[in-house]
């Protein structure tokens, strides 16, 4: 099957792209796909879409695929990608913008079920772990 992918400025100006760029405070088109972000990402081995692919898909306005990915919830904002990006794009901020798009959608899209943990598991966890997980993964 032949697929034609048309990249136009009209597409990058879509509401989704504009919202992500604004929330993240980043210019997505600055990315030239060097892949340094994915090379250094400590979570890459668990991701279904790599960080550089997330940026490409965000440039193209692929909202559905991005928001349905596991990868956006695996990013822990360690900032390795940000500190190594030669174009100074804050990739972690873009991924946070994707997460918050889901978390602020008006319905609960939590990616952490605290009550599903055993009391033993909950008991051993330090507050720093529980609070940061809830801040990142729940509405």
């Amino acid at each position, binding site marked *: 099957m032949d697929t034609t992918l048309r990249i136009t400025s009209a597409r990058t100006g879509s509401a989704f792209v504009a919202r992500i760029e604004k*929330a993240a405070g980043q210019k997505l088109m600055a990315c030239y796909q060097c892949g340094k972000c994915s090379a250094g990402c400590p979570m890459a081995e668990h991701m279904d879409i790599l960080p550089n692919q997330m940026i490409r898909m965000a440039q193209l306005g692929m909202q559905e695929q991005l928001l349905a990915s596991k990868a956006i919830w695996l990013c822990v904002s360690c900032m390795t990608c*940000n500190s190594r990006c030669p174009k100074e794009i804050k990739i972690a901020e873009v991924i946070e913008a994707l997460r918050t798009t889901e978390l602020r959608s008006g319905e609960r899209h939590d990616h952490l079920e605290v009550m599903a943990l055993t009391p033993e598991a909950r008991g051993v966890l330090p507050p720093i772990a529980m609070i940061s997980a809830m801040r990142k993964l729940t509405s």
Partner: protein
Amino acid sequence: MGNEKMKLAYYPGCTLKNQATNFDVSTVSSMAKLDVEVEELDRWNCCGTVHALNSDNVMNRVAPITNLVRVKEAQAKTEGMASEMMTSCAMCYNTLKRANIDVQKRSDALATINDLLSLENIKYEGDVEVLHLLEYLRDRVGFDNLAKKVSKPLKGLRVASYYGCLLMRPKEVAFDDAENPQVMENLVKALGATPVEFSQKTECCGAYHTVDQPDIIAGRTDKIMGSASEEQADLVVVSCPLCAFNLDFRQDDAKRLNPEFKHMPVLYFTQLMALAFGCDESALRFDLQHIDPLPTLKARGLD
């Protein structure tokens, strides 16, 4: 450093008052040995962990900025206290520092936060300096001065310094080189121990995935601790209670994942200081470590 005791506003953070009591008591005790009187802030609240990355975020800055208002209150009533605060927790440091930088840059966000904090007597003006303890030791105390207080040099002890993410990333908060920091190695040297370089020292431990995805953490811990082990480290020092939990308490999971995994103690850098300063067990609290460091220390004649 003058002869008079310096007073320093100290922000411990939630985990230092829970599972990481060893980090709290070793911080306070070793600072006393350095003639720095740390004063825990009155009415401190959550640092706001983790720093929210959305450019429009104001709400998540309220908690950290409230703490900086508390610093100003402490400073107003304490003679000899500068407009600065110290925390030894890397997560608290990162969150407080980034919120501070953010409101220093965004006057509209600061105005909104001050409106929300209208019941406070002091307005925040971006005028408190947030310092990590390692930064304080290097820049205010000085490692040469610190070395003079060592009563029990940690001779022969091979120490791998693990930085993780929060001290050196993002670059706005970094107080050393992001890829090859040396501040902890220099502290280790000042304490008479031998710093051990290892490739994973600035790699992420997996952080809060420890809550519901311990398998991911097992992999990280295996890789990070395994790298320190390859370099024949005796132990690893950290400055974050979340890293400490993952690298210490998740070692059993790492062992299940990789039967070759070798257990190794994980200490807070402040415990290493307290040990070298001759503090007693009440300042060390090694009973709170998952992997007991005493056999390792004993083998080096340091128990």
